Structure formats: structure tokens, C-alpha cells
């Protein structure tokens, strides 16, 4: 309830840039280091203030074949920053002839974010497996970073980290033969805590499992929140919208190429 007097109220005039902070995601992202590698998790809700803008957005971004990054904070910043990193990493790999290192990505990220003094509002969790092993880093908008066995960020970080603090053990097993994939379940539970307890997070759980063998992206690993079933029919007969005037202009076209893109109407 304690409010600070907003900066834009004190300016004498001109455009108020306060709203440029508003298009944030409101997110829960998490990562753990387990026996064979790292697992990254994220929810899939993007909010515009307190209205859901995207019910199924992808918050786990590609950086290198063995390095992925979860992004929280301002949606555009997280997206563009990770794309710039992916591009720089590719060039670096070509330049050096060596596969990417997670520390290299973290260093480039923190140097860039520090240069922008926090104006790029992206909080990232970088995870990957390289020649030195499995590593997990978090990078903050002002450029600081942490290297830890488990991390959470975003508005749902508190809810998610409580699950990790309770149940995380170093070198957790992921025994797929037993069907009790302990580590994946732990990350899923942490993200689910954020989905239910944080208003800025919601919809589904996405996971990304990175091992020395490869990467497994599990989009929609779990859908804990289900949409209610509508009882009524809300279709409109043709002619319901009034047509005031009608002008037909034929445009001659020649079909050169045809392609079909499936629209996600879930």
C-alpha cells in the first residue's frame, strides 16, 4: 500500500515513459542441476498489466545446441537479448572452432545488461551442458549473476523456490525406466506452484531437459489449469452484422506458391 510519488509526475512536461515498463511477462521460471544435466522449466502466460495477452507463449529460448535460456521480465527484452546471444554464440563458435560454453554466454549477457544499466528489463536463467559439465546461471537486469544448483525467477519465483527449498537434493536421479522422473517432477511442481499461487503466471508447464547426449524440449509437459466447458452456443448466422454498402473490386492474381500454416486455436 506504500506508494512512491511516480517519476513522471515530477517532470514538467513531455512524454511519460513510465508505461514502457508495463509490457512485462509476469512469469515463473526455474532451473535445477541434476545427475545427468540441467532441467529448465517455465510457465506459459504473458500478461499486459493484469490482462492475459498470450495463454501459451514460449519462454524457453534457444541459445546454442547445448544451451537454453528461460526469460522473465519485459517480454521483448528477454526475446531480443536471447536472440542476440544466440547470434553471438554462433559467430563465436565459428571463430574459435569450439562448442559454446555456458560461462561464455553468461559473461556476454552480463556485460551487455550492465552496459544498459538495467534499462533492458530481462531476468534470465541460463542452463546447459558443455565440456566442463552441467551448469545453471541466473542473470539479473542490472548485470549481476549467480551460479547455483537451483534457481527461480519472475513474479512467481517465491512460490517456486519454496518447492525447491523443501525437496531439492543434489545429484537427483531421473529414472525414466521407473516412470518416477523425480527431477522433472520437481521442476514441474515448482512451476505449478507459481502457476496457482502467482497471478502473473498461469496456463501450462514447459520443460527443457539438457544432457550431454542432447536436448529434449517438452512443450506443454503439464497442463494443470483446465479451461471451463462452455454450455451455450455462440455462433452468428450470416447476415447478423448489418451491411451498409458493398463495393466489389476484382484484383487479377496469378498463384505462384501455396503453403499452409496451422494456426494455434487452442
Amino acid at each position: 500500500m506504500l506508494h512512491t510519488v511516480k517519476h513522471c509526475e515530477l517532470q514538467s512536461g513531455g512524454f511519460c515513459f513510465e508505461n514502457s515498463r508495463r509490457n512485462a511477462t509476469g512469469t515463473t521460471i526455474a532451473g535445477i542441476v541434476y545427475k545427468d544435466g540441467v532441467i529448465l522449466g517455465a510457465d506459459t502466460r504473458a500478461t499486459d498489466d493484469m490482462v492475459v495477452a498470450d495463454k501459451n507463449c514460449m519462454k524457453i529460448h534457444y541459445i546454442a545446441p547445448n544451451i537454453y535460456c528461460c526469460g522473465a521480465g519485459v517480454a521483448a527484452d528477454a526475446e531480443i537479448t536471447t536472440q542476440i546471444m544466440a547470434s553471438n554464440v554462433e559467430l563465436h563458435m565459428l571463430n574459435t572452432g569450439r562448442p559454446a560454453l555456458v560461462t561464455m554466454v553468461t559473461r556476454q549477457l552480463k556485460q551487455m545488461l550492465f552496459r544498459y544499466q538495467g534499462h533492458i528489463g530481462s531476468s534470465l536463467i541460463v542452463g546447459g551442458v558443455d565440456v566442463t559439465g552441467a551448469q545453471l546461471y541466473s542473470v539479473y537486469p542490472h548485470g549481476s549473476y549467480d551460479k547455483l544448483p537451483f534457481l527461480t525467477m519472475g513474479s512467481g519465483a517465491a512460490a517456486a523456490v519454496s518447492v525447491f527449498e523443501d525437496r531439492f537434493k543434489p545429484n537427483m536421479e531421473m529414472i525414466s525406466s521407473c516412470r518416477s522422473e523425480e527431477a522433472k517432477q520437481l521442476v514441474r511442481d515448482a512451476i505449478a506452484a507459481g502457476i496457482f499461487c502467482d497471478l502473473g503466471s498461469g496456463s501450462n508447464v514447459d520443460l527443457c531437459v539438457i544432457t550431454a547426449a542432447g536436448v529434449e524440449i517438452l512443450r506443454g509437459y503439464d497442463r494443470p489449469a483446465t479451461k471451463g466447458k462452455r454450455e451455450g452456443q455462440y455462433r452468428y448466422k450470416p447476415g447478423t452484422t448489418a451491411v451498409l454498402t458493398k463495393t466489389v473490386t476484382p484484383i487479377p492474381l496469378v498463384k505462384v506458391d501455396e503453403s499452409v500454416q496451422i494456426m494455434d486455436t487452442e
Partner: protein
Amino acid sequence: MKDYHYSGPVEHKFSPYSFNGGTVLAVAGEDFAIVASDTRLSEGYSIHSRDSPKCYKLTDTTVIGCSGFHGDCLTLTKIIDARLKMYKHSNNKTMTSGAIAAMLSTILYGRRFFPYYVYNIIGGLDEHGKGAVYSFDPVGSYQRDTYKAGGSASAMLQPLLDNQIGFKNMEGVQHVPLTQEKAVQLVKDVFISAAERDVYTGDALRLCIITKEGIKEQTVALRKD
């Protein structure tokens, strides 16, 4: 060069209000009225309760839905209950829906310069047994409606109700009067949609259906994320 980063003394102000979210909706039919609200109580990005309905029963024929600042909702409903009792004791009869609405308007305007941060909607039956809905703003301006949505998802619900109940923006559609079954179905469906896009709306929906037989309550589950 202009300095966009403010570095200097910052004044902290205490705000007596806080926003606890929630959506309310009322629909009036020929011989019934429905008052519905979600049951989520939130603050900031957190949820205080998943079972805090915003419909309060005033009389056997009137229900009020209050959303906004929960502290003021509780106090306001207490004051309304007290005033109802006082009226009953002095006039030896229960207040009608229209009378309650007029009284609420004066109660709210009495706090014109430190308002109750509450969006009220009263739903009930009038003296002739017909459905009545009265919607208010925080300082007491009110009018009688056929249907009204208030609270955090009101801007999402109201246009849909304008279309489905008021038959607005449609041509060549028969204006059938609203039945109780259709109204209940519509209220459930619009809340399901509101819960998809408004973060403050969700958890459960509480419906109060008011007829001359009395007030029936129904609870429907909504998204919990």
C-alpha cells in the same frame, strides 16, 4: 541532456486503499434476478483466498454484489445490514430493492470526499415481482438496468452481455425474452471466458438466483491459475 533516472529524495505516501480484485454481475429477468461473483480475493500478485464470495444477501428478495477494496466492502455491507434493521424496526416492513438502492446512493455520497472504494451492483425483485438490477459507482451515482457487470473483468463481460441480452450490434435477430435457464447458462459461460483473460478473476463462481420462492445458491468451479 535530460536525466531520465530520478536520483534524489523520494516521497513515500500511505495509501488507505488497496485493490482486492473480483468481478460481479447481475441480470434481471421477467420474474427472477441473478447476482453472480467470482470467489477470488487477491492483492498485488498474490491470492489471499480462493473462497471469498462477493455476493451478500440483504433481504429475501435482494442480493448485493460488492467488489473493489475488501475492507470497504465488509464495512459497507455491515452498514447496509444495520440500516435495514433500523428501517424494519421503525417502519414494520422489509425494505424493497428500489428503496435499498436509493439508500445506498445516499450512504455512498455521504463519503464523497473519502469514498468507499467499492463497485456495487444490487440484484433483486421489485414490488411487482419483476427482476431489478441497480448499478452504482463508488460515490453513489446509480441507475436501474437489465444487466450489469462490475469489478475487474467488467470491461470484458459488459460488451458480451450487451450482445447476448441486449441484442446490440445484431441485425435480423428475434428479441426473445430471457429465460432463467438461459440466463444462468450465459452467466456461467461469460465467467469462464473472463477467467481466461483476467488474472483477478477465477477459482470459483458463486451464483445467487432470486425468485419469489427465495434465494438459491450455486457454485461452479473456474480456473485456479
